[in-house]
């Protein structure tokens, strides 16, 4: 046996019969990918992880347990994983993940991304998840001893860690102004500024529980923010939508009246669109900015010019209370200047402060608001009640009636 052969043998993959089933098929195979990398880099950690994974497929059980691993000065950003069966799979003993905050909109230059790959291959497994559901670049498979060096090299190139535990989490933003005609504000810039501002709260757990931001340029909500962000920042407009009448006519000519009736007019949730010959009349007072007609006719219809955001608060998963969709807290707010972003941050600060003081352990802000009642929360953060916050007024008399209320609108 030649030396080369010996070396090769030493790094041969162990059989993973269950995993091998996942190599076929048209969809990219993560197993194939892992095997390729481990075969090239001969990182035993990855071989161990594949072995343990195969064992999971056989026994239908997972075998990781948590621990505490971190970088200097930070309390979050590394998810540590130790094998519960390291006696069986010693190569898989440690398999920690570093959460790295990408640029807004998950944009990269090939150059910077290659650098990340190089640093990552140097210190870790070479496996990565692009991206985690929250939006982190997840570097999966580093030993505790390499964590600090890995971080330091990344940090020198402008990469910082994401959140974990009771922190502000890594944000997400849609591609927005970089490419999309529907973007009503600068999702990417706002994401960058807001999350930089909250870097301390991202890195050191000081909150009742996690807090997530997502930034969507319009109500299409391509970041799914309403469902899964404590703070959903969604672009919208206040004035009339812009109509390019020539393009409306072109569209009708091209697609036919039937198509327009069946796919635009009759689909408007508030019946705000009327057909007038070869034109559409938009009843802007009734338009709820749902985006549908703009989506179907992007060349003809565009958001208005008085643009800003709607802030919805409280979105999160179903733990304990059933899935919570965020709900409107600020119907409209400008988001154009530095001052606008500052005002936004000031408001969020008040919310986070209130929640920090009043939230129970492991309670998301939406749950806190639900528990204390929207009223109390509004008072605490200095917001006025607004009809846009509700789908409809209350249907029960169980409230502390406010004697200062006057039933008639102030003139």
């Amino acid at each position: 046996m030649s030396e080369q052969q010996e070396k090769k043998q030493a790094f041969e993959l162990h059989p993973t019969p269950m995993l091998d089933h996942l190599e076929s098929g048209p969809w990219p195979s993560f197993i194939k990918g892992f095997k390729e990398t481990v075969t090239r880099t001969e990182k035993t950690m990855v071989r161990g992880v594949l072995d343990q994974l195969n064992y999971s497929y056989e026994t239908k059980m997972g075998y990781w347990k948590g621990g505490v691993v971190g970088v200097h000065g930070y309390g979050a950003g590394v998810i540590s994983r130790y094998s519960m069966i390291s006696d069986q799979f010693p190569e898989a003993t440690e398999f920690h993940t570093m959460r790295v905050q990408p640029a807004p909109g998950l944009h990269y230059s090939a150059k910077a991304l290659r650098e990340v790959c190089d640093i990552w291959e140097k210190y870790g497994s070479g496996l990565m998840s692009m991206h985690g559901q929250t939006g982190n670049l997840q570097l999966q498979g580093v030993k505790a001893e390499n964590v600090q060096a890995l971080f330091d090299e990344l940090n020198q190139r402008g990469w910082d860690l994401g959140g974990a535990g009771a922190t502000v989490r890594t944000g997400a933003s849609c591609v927005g102004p970089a490419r999309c005609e529907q973007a009503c504000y600068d999702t990417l810039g706002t994401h960058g500024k807001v999350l930089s501002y909250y870097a301390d709260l991202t890195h050191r757990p000081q909150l009742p529980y996690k807090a997530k931001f997502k930034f969507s340029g319009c109500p299409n909500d391509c970041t799914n923010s309403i469902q899964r962000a404590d703070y959903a920042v969604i672009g919208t407009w206040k004035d009339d939508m812009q109509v390019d009448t020539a393009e409306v006519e072109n569209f009708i000519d091209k697609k036919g009246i039937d198509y327009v009736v069946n796919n635009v007019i009759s689909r408007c949730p508030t019946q705000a669109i009327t057909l007038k010959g070869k034109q559409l009349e938009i009843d802007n007072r009734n338009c709820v900015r749902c985006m549908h007609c703009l989506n179907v006719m992007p060349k003809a219809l565009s958001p208005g010019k008085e643009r800003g955001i709607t802030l919805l608060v409280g979105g999160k998963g179903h733990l304990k209370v059933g899935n919570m969709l965020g709900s409107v807290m600020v119907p409209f707010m400008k988001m154009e200047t530095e001052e606008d972003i500052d005002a936004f941050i000031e408001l969020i600060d008040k919310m986070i402060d209130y929640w920090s003081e009043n939230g129970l352990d492991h309670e998301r802000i939406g749950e806190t608001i639900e528990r204390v009642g929207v009223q109390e929360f509004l008072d605490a953060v200095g917001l006025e009640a607004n009809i846009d916050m509700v789908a409809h007024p209350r249907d029960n008399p169980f409230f502390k009636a406010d004697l200062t209320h006057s039933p008639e609108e102030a003139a």
Partner: protein
Amino acid sequence: MAERTWKTIENGPHSLDDFLHPISKKNYGQWRYHERPRPGVLKHVAWSGDVLFTVRAATHRQVTVDIVRRLCDLADKYADGYLRWTIRNNVEFMTPNEANVEPLIRDLAAIGHPVGGTGPSVSAIAHTQGWLHCDIPAIDASGVAKSIMDALFHDFAHEEMPNRVRLSTSCCEINCGGQADIAVVVQHTRPPRINHEILANVCEMPSTVARCPVAAIRPTTVNGKPSLMVVEEKCIYCGACFGACPAMEINHPEHSKLAVWVGGKNSNARSKPTNMKLVAHGLPNNPPRWPEVTDVLKRILGAYKAGGRDWERLGEWIERIGWRRFFEETGLAFDKSMIDNYRHARVSLNQSAQIRF
């Protein structure tokens, strides 16, 4: 008292046998269609070809033997000796004889029972006991009802609304009057003051404690006697405890107010049934005519009449135009109390970016 010789017969509802008009009996379950020849009058046609006219007239609900006897006389004169009441306290006379209709209407008017309440009109208001009889009311439901119906009378006698309008009035927050297109219900604005003098004698303490929706009532000792206390921060002034125990004095001439609710719907036509929603509160308890309340109702009905489409019930109209427009068009003020913070609050929030600006 004389010895009782009669042995009770527990039959439940009175038998219907002799109470149905012969034409109803003959065509029982065999009706084909109906028309509305004029407000207050229905014409039902059976598959047999038989025709039955119904004349519907207002009553005050709180009637007397004199009033009822007069109505019986009209039943004999025009309706073959039968009459019935609707679920909304209107009285109805049925006759196969069209010629009876107009004289009956005249005679009804003469004794103070205007006809109306059919089709897209404002039918008689459903109301409750009030100061006349109940033990827990903060207003007189009959008086509020009378004041409202006087104010809306035109729309009882005419069919000019987009669809039927059903009103109710309830004299405490318990709301025996139920869900309606527009409801007027008492709304308290402070916790009950406990009458410790009488509490020990009149109160079943555990059930009173259990009655509170927010667990604000706690056992305590007052002057050495077991009594109750209310945790005022928790209390939401609902008055449920007062229904359980007269010592939980929630009523107050100034602090018990009136609230207006809209959009209750019971029929399954088009949209599913819906609960009504709060749109005005803090209205003063202002007998004998409660003008602030009738004013709010007039605003709401005025806007609905102007903006509603045919067949659109009040709540359906609001859903179409949006709650923001509803408040704008009625001039009522939305306030933070109207944001739900009770058990199902979440489902009432705007969990979307859909907004009318």
